[in-house]
């Protein structure tokens, strides 16, 4: 909508429909671009944490470095909050709210499963977390009606789980690094799609 002194003028039916359509599209684009920033942030964090923890485990062979995973939400949530404060507050629509809830649920699952794993380390934790990560990614793709994200989520979930079954020890962390890459790529796809 152009700035003008005629913003209160009467319009034809076609002009009215065009204006409604323009506003709805701009709004949707703005909201989904904002969601994309969060995909990129969490993808980058997952990638960095996976590689750093992989290196530390590889060099020291000390499993306690796995505790560093808990620093990820501690760092990620304040950063995500900062991202929201930077510039105009972008409202939530149905899609962005649902995306938010899907990833919040994933985060809750991941944290609780990781805490349980601290006491009784199950060999299938990577398999479980990566399958859930793929599921969350796939669900996001279905919500956004975006095939690359749906397929990326499926490959991440199923492929990551299979790889996690085949490889042992800290090499499994590289599955999460791939997950981080796919997550960040999702953000970039959404950002480009709604530019």
């Amino acid at each position, binding site marked *: *909508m152009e700035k003008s002194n005629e913003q209160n003028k009467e319009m034809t*039916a076609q002009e009215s429909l065009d204006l409604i359509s323009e506003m709805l599209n701009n709004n949707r684009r703005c909201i989904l671009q904002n969601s994309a920033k969060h995909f990129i942030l969490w993808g980058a964090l997952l990638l960095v944490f996976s590689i750093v923890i992989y290196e530390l485990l590889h060099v020291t062979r000390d499993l306690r470095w796995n505790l560093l995973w808990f620093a990820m939400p501690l760092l990620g949530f304040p950063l995500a909050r900062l991202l929201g404060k930077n510039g105009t*507050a972008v409202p939530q629509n149905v899609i962005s709210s649902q995306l938010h809830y899907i990833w919040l649920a994933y985060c809750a699952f991941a944290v609780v499963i990781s805490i349980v794993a601290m006491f009784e380390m199950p060999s299938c934790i990577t398999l479980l977390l990566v399958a859930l990560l793929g599921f969350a990614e796939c669900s996001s793709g279905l919500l956004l009606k975006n095939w690359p994200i749906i397929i990326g989520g499926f490959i991440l979930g199923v492929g990551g789980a299979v790889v996690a079954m085949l490889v042992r020890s800290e090499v499994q962390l590289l599955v999460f690094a791939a997950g981080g890459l796919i997550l960040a790529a999702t953000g970039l796809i959404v950002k480009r799609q709604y530019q």
Partner: protein
Amino acid sequence: MTMFPKLDPILHSELRLAVMSILIGVDEADFTYLKKQTGATSGNLSVQIDKLMAAGYITVEKGFKGKVPHTTCKITTTGQDAFNKYVESLKEYLSASK
């Protein structure tokens, strides 16, 4: 150019319609966001928001974020109904004029 005197006069104004088109798709939106999306001036936007509020189409919450005044707008059920009716009327008019 055909005008529509029978359409809802509250909605049949460019800026008020733009505000309602934004609010129909979101939970709520703040004043700064509405200003950015519509490209309106603060004064004009305030006046139009007051008119929409007076019609019962939106609710406005005024508060502070830290020390900065913060205004949030939310569409009401009456507003949603009026918007849907307005869009239906537009579609009917366009299909009748074809």
